Structures are given as structure tokens and as C-alpha cells.
């Protein structure tokens, strides 16, 4: 399905710039397509959970930026956040939900389909 979508979109000449919508270029999930959100989801895919500090260090971003993008992923139910208090300090721990993992898998399949579809003519 992903390959068909990619091929059809290619024929239609759609790009992220020409088709502003929640589903972006080639039918990609725009929520996960953004770099920082893709980084968050990818990092959580190989860890049971990561703290806010871990994610911030891994993705080399600011508190504000990470908060904004993590919240968007939380709202979409792609990640879940658990707040705990350790030694008197509040701590946020994130994990990937089943929906988030499916979204990442779909995104990966889509990228591979695009590569396959653009290789085919040559």
C-alpha cells in the first residue's frame, strides 16, 4: 500500500511543500515526519523508556523545544509520559505506545517504498 501511495504521489508530483495538510508529502504522517519528533520516536523505539533529560541530551535540543514536540506526540498518543518524584525532584519518563510504534513502522515502510519506487524507472 505504501509503495502504491508513493508511486501515485510521485506521478502526481506532490511534495511536502506543495501539499500542506496533516498528511504531508506522499501521504506521510506529518506528525512523525518532523525531525525532532522523528528523533524522539526513534530513540524510544530502542529503549523501554527514556527520561526528559536523556532525550534532551540525545537529541541535543532545548527544554522548550523538546517539551513542545513531546506534547504533540503525547496528544497523538504516540508516546506516553509518566511523571515521578525522585529525591524530591520531578521527573518525566517517556515511552513509545503501540500506536507510536506502528506509526514509526509505517513511516519506515513508506521511506523504503519511496526508495524502491524512485529506483524502479532507472
Amino acid at each position, binding site marked *: 500500500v505504501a509503495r502504491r501511495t508513493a508511486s501515485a504521489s*510521485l506521478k502526481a*508530483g506532490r*511534495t*511536502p*511543500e*506543495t501539499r500542506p495538510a496533516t498528511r504531508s508529502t*506522499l501521504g506521510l504522517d506529518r506528525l512523525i515526519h518532523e*525531525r525532532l519528533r*522523528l*528523533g524522539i520516536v*526513534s*530513540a*524510544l*523505539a*530502542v*529503549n*523501554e*523508556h*527514556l*527520561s526528559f*533529560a*536523556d532525550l534532551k*541530551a*540525545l*537529541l541535543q535540543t532545548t527544554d522548550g523545544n523538546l517539551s513542545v514536540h513531546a506534547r504533540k506526540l503525547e496528544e497523538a498518543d504516540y508516546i506516553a509520559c509518566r511523571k515521578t518524584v*525522585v529525591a524530591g525532584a520531578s*521527573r518525566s*519518563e517517556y515511552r513509545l505506545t503501540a500506536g507510536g510504534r506502528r506509526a*514509526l513502522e509505517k513511516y*519506515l515502510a513508506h*521511506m*523504503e517504498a*519511496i*526508495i524502491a*519506487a*524512485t*529506483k524502479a*524507472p532507472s
Partner: protein
Amino acid sequence: MNRPTLRSGTAPAAPAPSALHTQAARNLEFIRSAMERASEFTAVPGWGGIAMGSTALVAAALSGGARRSGWWLQLWLAEAVVASSLGAAAMVLKAMRSGTTLAALPARRFALAFLPAVVSGAVLTFALRGEPRLLPGCWLLLYGTAVASAGALSVRPVWLMGMLLMALGVVALVVAPAGGDAFMAAGFGGVQILFGAIIARKHGG
């Protein structure tokens, strides 16, 4: 992202398939890289390394060139037990502090890479117990191998520390087997304290 070029008098051109191909490949590379970085074992304890190095300096001072006696070997074996306990405790504390667990995959992979060379070191210690002048170089080389192997799965300074310990081990074995205690102090003491400080400062304690 590569954008399609505009030609005068025509509609915007469709994106070249090669540009989409490149972008998709870059996205996959980004995901792979993010996953690899997130899989690194980051609970190597900097402060624990400093503590371990300090015990090695104390042992080197106490050994006082008594390598021919059985006491020398017992002293360093006791130091190894104390240092290992300190390192393990510091690792557990750092993992707890950073919200990770030593049962997670990165920690298990780290242990699997670290342990074979340590076990080899234990076997060689038994085999060479009658040749104590060879033990310092042997220990440094094998501990360095363990650290470098596991360091490939952790932050960069860990791998560098392993390589430096290996180099010291080679020098101790090949060039100056008589200077065992000095190499032990330099390697297990100085190198561990130096890299412990770097890890503590740059990689969260």
C-alpha cells in the same frame, strides 16, 4: 531538502525521483543514527572510575615493589575486588539516577562485550601466578581490551580509555616488564581517574 528547479514560463517541475530517493535515504539514515545513539550504554560511572583509580594508587603505594612475595598478588587481587565493587555500585547508582536499568538491552550488550576479556584475565592470572612480573602488563592489556570492546557500545571516552590501557599493557609486557607497579599506578590509577573525570563532567556523573 532538494527542491525542484523552476523553469521560466512553465509550471513548477515535479520533484525529481532522485531527490525524493535521496531525501528518503537521509530520513532512514537519521532514524538509524538516532536509534544507535539511543542504544549506547551511558551508565559507565565517571565518579566510580575516579574511586576505582584511587584504590589502585593506594595499592600501588602499598605494594612497594614486593612483587616476589605472594603478598603482592593478594594485595592486587584484593584491590581488584574492592575496585570492581565500587565500579558496580557506581554503575547501579548512575543507571538509577538516569532512569535506566542495568537489565536493559544496552547494559546487557555492554556486559557481554566486557566480560570475555575479564574472564581471560582471571584465567591468565591463575596460569601466570608464578610469573608475577608478567601480570601487570597482562592485566592492563586484558582490562583495556574489555573496556575498549564494551566502549564501542558506550560513549567515546570509554573506548579511548580502553585503548590507552591496552597500549600501557603492551609497553609493560614488551618494553619494561620490570616497571610493573608504575604501570599499574599509571593505568589502573591515573588513566581511570583521568577518564573518570572526563566521563563525570561530560556524561552525567
